[in-house]
């Protein structure tokens, strides 16, 4: 018997249903695949963490959610899938995990993951550690605010000052700092919405 298949395999790898006993069917596999679970984890853990961190803004929650995505995904995940398929699956899982997190804690989906839009977080080329334009966008929003609004937000969110420290830095009372922060956040949110339009 010849070792050469009598028929060419289908490129999509699907069985044709032929009854030929010695026809060899080959599944065409994307060369860009993960070979083991460790490589799935190591290739995606940093990226998935960054995505979660950008959505919750604190390390403990980002770690919990990243962990939950991997715990949930690793059971049903098929290693024979391409890297793109694996990442898409991780991303879809991440969307569900994040939605569940907000439902439990705020009863409202404050942030979300859109697999089509956010695939860049997981699929960017190696070495590109900043797939998001978030810092640039934040800088643009801050630049659009009045000086005092910008300053209170910089002190609080970028320099992580307590409200008391921020008040001292701006030479205002703590009560005034809270009011200023409240108004500044509302205006920043409004600017962000305008930028999206």
């Amino acid at each position, binding site marked *: 018997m010849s070792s050469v298949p009598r028929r060419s395999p289908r490129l999509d790898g699907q069985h044709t249903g032929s009854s030929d006993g010695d026809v060899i069917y080959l599944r065409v596999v994307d060369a860009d695949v993960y070979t083991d679970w460790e490589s799935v984890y190591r290739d995606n853990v940093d990226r998935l963490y960054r995505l979660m961190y950008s959505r919750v803004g604190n390390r403990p929650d980002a770690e919990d959610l990243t962990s939950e995505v991997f715990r949930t995904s690793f059971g049903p995940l098929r290693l024979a899938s391409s890297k793109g398929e694996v990442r898409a699956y991780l991303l879809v899982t991440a969307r569900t995990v994040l939605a569940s997190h907000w439902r439990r804690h*705020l009863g409202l989906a404050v942030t979300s993951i859109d697999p089509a839009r956010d695939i860049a977080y997981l699929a960017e080329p190696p070495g590109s550690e900043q797939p998001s334009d978030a810092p640039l966008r934040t800088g643009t929003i801050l630049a659009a605010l009045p000086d005092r609004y910008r300053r209170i937000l910089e002190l*609080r969110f970028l320099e992580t000052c307590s409200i008391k420290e921020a008040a001292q830095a701006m030479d205002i009372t703590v009560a005034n700092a809270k009011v200023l922060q409240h108004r500044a956040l509302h205006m920043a949110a409004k600017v962000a919405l305008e930028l999206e339009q």
Partner: protein
Amino acid sequence: MNSRRLSAFVDALVAGRRSGNLRADPEDADVLRMAIALRASRPGDAEPDEQFVSDLYEELLDQADSRLSPSARPVKIRRGRTALAAVAASIALVGGTVAATQAITQRPVAPSALQVPHGQILRTATFETAGHQVSGQIVAYRSHPSWVFMNVDVPHYAGTIFCRLRASNGTTVDVGKFELHNGTGEFSRSIQVDVGRLRGAELVTSSGSIIASASFA
């Protein structure tokens, strides 16, 4: 959500704590999202902790049981240079200078000064021990405000470490202190120092011993 609850949410974010449980109204979503975006854009905080990465791997290893090779153990992921470049990039982007991002990501982290537009400057240097062992990197970025960021890897050291900047005229400025866990740690802070006049930086133990120093070009 009233302003008191919003303040509590922001306080937790600023302190790096969990946001906790509270009921938010739909009209609060934009403001909460803004607060999260601002906090998440802070340079240096978006990288996962190496201990977390290792611990989760171990947990998944147990969960996967036979699916993972028992001999496979996490290789400590050395993110030093790329992470530092990313942080420097985010510092530059928050400052509004995209050009700095391109400059830092295209060059190795080594003693250097990268000129960027509008009078801003990005300077990097490598921490070395007295025995010339590389033990971290530092980035200083002049903007409004100016920033310094460093990552440190001093094997077998745990505890508080102090960072001191040296100016070209010989004066020193204490920038702050941070904790090393398993010999590693990261630190960032805005500074009131002319970055263009910095000569170097030192990492000092609580007893005053210098364990590593860096010289800006």
